[in-house]
């Protein structure tokens, strides 16, 4: 990082002033000798104070200039804060927004997602592979070729077999992402230990050829190849262990140089990334800044204040509702709202009274007031009443239950006349979610239910409601952020009957509609670009909402809030990986 000459000049200038003050005050001996003790002390005190003040002021300038020294030619060090540290600093294990935001620019998979804002960023493009895969006519075989002469950040050559090793790690290290790669032939056998390798992946390190065979056609597979889960790592990475404390060497624009989980982590420009660029990976963006220091800070309001006062350059989370208005009005030149692909909804147990009655579920959809919930979110909610969010392929806007219409909702409840009116409403203890739960509890009370609100810790919320043995799982808060830009990600884990699992299930509504499951399975065997597939997902969205399987109410907007010294116009939020760290630039 350049520190520049400017601060040094300032410093010496200040010192000269102080020095000359001393000289001047001391030089006329006759005048000095005539001064009484008190005056001498006063003069010495003033000079000392001036000198101290001058040095301190120069010190301040020095700090400021070091941060702005990178102006012009890129570079510079920046500070980033996150409310939660990444779950793992390991591409095969990380499965949180914070983790993917960081690792997207550290590990490059064979395919990757375009470095672009908006929907352009959901396009899968070649990463370490020379080109997009060649898919066999039956849709089961994918052929790729690794670019040649690429190196990891430690100088180790990147080999085709590193991809196999990465997929093997998913299964041996019990990654949450392993389920996506089970359709690879031999993956299950490798996972259960009955095979030594994954037979469906064949690689040739000499030529860079990689052939992947699937058990059945899978329209999501290209998207899956672009996730950090599938990023090649060298065999020096532990096969069955979390590598957070010594992350594998990087293949992206940044490398991780220090990790003190869960407090801080440092990313620095990866000098070996030029080998990836030289190999032709033009779609993978290069870094603008030299160093990013990521620090966990649990206080959202402290993070806001730090950015306002330019002590931090970017905060990963949106400002809390009470600071949002202030930030919007005072810092409009470095704050903006950003789209994010997610859906917020209330799940209702479709298999248990009273929500096993479609009229009750429809009544809830009629009764919900998205504007009320928008105000709970501090104005960051885009109202919606469907499963697929805007920006997701297959999204076609519709609203089957216009409202809020309490009269219609009460009429439907009266028609259904449920025998069981005792309902347990589940939510977690994060501030906005607790308020959402309180709103929903009041709504159900107004509809004549005897509702009980159960607020549990966010750490255990999903595991608790995803466990079939938990009693009174009637209805509650739910949200879903896309794993990859394919509509199947919003249906299969959340609404497919096969996703009703004893533990760690995501189908909280216990939705089980065999005809819709069949449609979903059929759509997955096709590519999104095939004719009628996007329309098929739009129809599936509508079909589930005709069953009122959920009560969706909106899509949350995220934010970008940067310090004054950051180039606000260059930075953008990626729809999958949050802020794209390669877009960070110092003015």
């Amino acid at each position, binding site marked *: 990082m350049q520190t520049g000459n400017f601060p040094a000049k300032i410093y010496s200038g200040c010192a000269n002033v102080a020095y000359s003050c001393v000289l001047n005050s001391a030089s006329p001996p006759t005048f000095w000798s005539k001064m009484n003790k008190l005056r001498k002390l006063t003069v010495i005190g003033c000079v000392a104070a001036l000198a101290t003040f001058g040095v301190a002021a120069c010190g301040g300038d020095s700090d400021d200039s070091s941060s702005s020294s990178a102006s012009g030619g890129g570079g510079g060090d920046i500070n980033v804060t996150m409310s939660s540290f990444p779950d793992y600093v390991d591409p095969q294990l990380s499965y949180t927004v914070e983790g993917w935001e960081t690792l997207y620019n550290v590990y490059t998979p064979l395919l990757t997602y375009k470095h672009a804002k908006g929907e352009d960023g959901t396009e899968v493009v070649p990463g370490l592979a020379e080109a997009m895969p060649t898919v066999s006519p039956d849709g089961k075989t994918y052929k790729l070729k690794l670019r040649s002469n690429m190196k990891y950040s430690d100088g180790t050559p990147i080999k085709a077999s590193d991809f196999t090793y990465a997929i093997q790690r998913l299964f041996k290290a019990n990654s949450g992402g392993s389920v996506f790669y089970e359709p690879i032939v031999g993956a299950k056998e490798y996972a259960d230990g009955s095979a030594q390798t994954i037979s469906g992946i064949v690689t040739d390190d000499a030529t860079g050829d990689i052939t992947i065979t699937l058990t059945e056609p899978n329209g999501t597979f290209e998207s899956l190849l672009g996730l950090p889960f599938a990023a090649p790592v060298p065999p020096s990475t532990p096969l069955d262990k979390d590598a957070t404390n010594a992350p594998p060497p990087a293949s992206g624009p940044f490398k991780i140089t220090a990790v003190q989980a869960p407090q801080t982590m440092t990313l620095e420009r990866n000098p070996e990334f030029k080998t990836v660029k030289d190999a032709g990976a033009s779609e993978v963006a290069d870094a603008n800044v030299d160093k990013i220091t990521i620090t966990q800070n649990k206080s959202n309001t402290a993070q806001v204040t730090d950015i306002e006062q330019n002590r931090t350059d970017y905060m990963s989370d949106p400002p809390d509702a*009470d600071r949002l208005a202030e930030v919007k009005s005072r810092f409009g030149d470095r704050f903006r709202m950003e789209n994010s692909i997610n859906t917020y909804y209330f799940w209702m147990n479709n298999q248990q009274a009273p929500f096993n009655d479609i009229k009750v579920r429809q009544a809830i959809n009629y009764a919900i007031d998205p504007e009320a919930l928008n*105000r709970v979110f501090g104005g960051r909610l885009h109202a919606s009443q469907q499963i697929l969010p805007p920006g997701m392929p297959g999204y076609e806007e519709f609203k089957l239950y216009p409202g809020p219409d309490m009269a219609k909702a009460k009429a439907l409840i009266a028609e259904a006349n449920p025998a069981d009116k005792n309902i347990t409403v589940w939510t977690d203890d994060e501030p906005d979610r607790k308020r959402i739960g309180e*709103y929903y509890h009041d709504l159900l009370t107004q509809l004549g239910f005897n509702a009980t609100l159960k607020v549990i810790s966010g750490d255990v919320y999903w595991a608790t409601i995803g466990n079939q043995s938990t009693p009174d799982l009637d209805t509650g808060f739910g949200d879903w952020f896309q794993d990859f830009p394919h509509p199947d990600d919003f249906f299969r884990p959340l609404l497919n009957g096969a996703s009703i699992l004893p533990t760690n299930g995501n189908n909280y509504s216990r939705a089980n509609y065999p005809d819709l499951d069949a449609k979903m399975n059929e759509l997955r065997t096709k590519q999104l670009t095939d004719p009628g597939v996007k329309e098929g997902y739009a129809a599936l969205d509508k079909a589930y909402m005709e069953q009122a399987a959920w009560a969706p109410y909106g899509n949350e907007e995220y934010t970008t809030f940067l310090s004054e010294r950051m180039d606000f116009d260059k930075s953008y939020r990626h729809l999958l990986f949050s802020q794209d760290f390669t877009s960070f630039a110092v003015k």
Partner: protein
Amino acid sequence: MAAPFTEVEVADEPPLPTGVPVARIQGRSPWYLAALRMRRNKVALAFGVLFVAIVLLCLCAPLWADHVAHTTPDANHITDTIDVGGKQVDIVAPDGTPIGPGLRGQYLLGADQNGRDVMVRLLYGGRTSIFIGVTAAAITTVVAVIIGMLCGYYRGWIDAILSRVMDVVWAFPVLLLGIALGTALAVGGLSLGFTTLAGDSVWIPILIIGLVYVPYMARPIRGEVLALSQKEFVEAALAQGKGPLRIMVTELLPNVVSTIIVFFTLNIANNMLLESALSFLGAGVRPPSASWGTMIADGYQTIYTAPHLTIVPGLMIVLTVLSLNVFGDGLRDALDPRAKIRLEH
């Protein structure tokens, strides 16, 4: 000016308050003397009156809710508006900022982020907080007196076992123990054999708070009973053929009752503080029910834009706890001026 009356000198007793004629004091019961002392402690009395006033105010919650605010403590009014100076104003602005306090019947102390009337929630929350404080103190007192009596009177293995159990409970910091129990019971509730308490029942924090403070009260009572059981009047009762239960109830209990009363009063204040802390941390009163602790927990996130959500319930906790503590100290001075009763933990 010379003192108009002579102070009464009582052996082993500190001087009685001035201004009381000797003739009125001689031959009076200890309770009468305590009342005389209490009457002279104007500050303690003033805070006692303040506590009674707060209790009465909270008891009037339904009246305020029905006839002035026209809402209930849990009713959300996020998208509603109210008339302020002839203009319709959002109760919760589109950016999520709730309306602040103002001189009007509805939303006198403003609204929270769910559009609920803070004044109504404050009064209902006060009922919850005071109910928990008093009921938990009653549970603590009953259990602590029984344990203290048994340990102090019987000593031996009964004392050894019960005291060790008390030591175990004492070893845990009160707040941590409360959080651990509150969190553990939040999902599944508590089965007591004859009845089951739901996880959101107000009796869960009452039982938790009531039980975690037992050792802090049982040990001093045990100490007093231990000393009293060596006294001649207990030996005389034994000689008269009185059984252990009768001795404990008729001889020992009256001698520790002043300690119990003082502890009970101070314990209410401590219980209210613990309830607030537990509710703030999500292990006490369950939302959407209001208590002063849950109100602070709901409000602290908006301290910049809606400080009234935190300040108002915080102020009520301070006033109530202060009034109970000052009154309790006065009561202690009146009932047993030699005592150094402190509810320390």
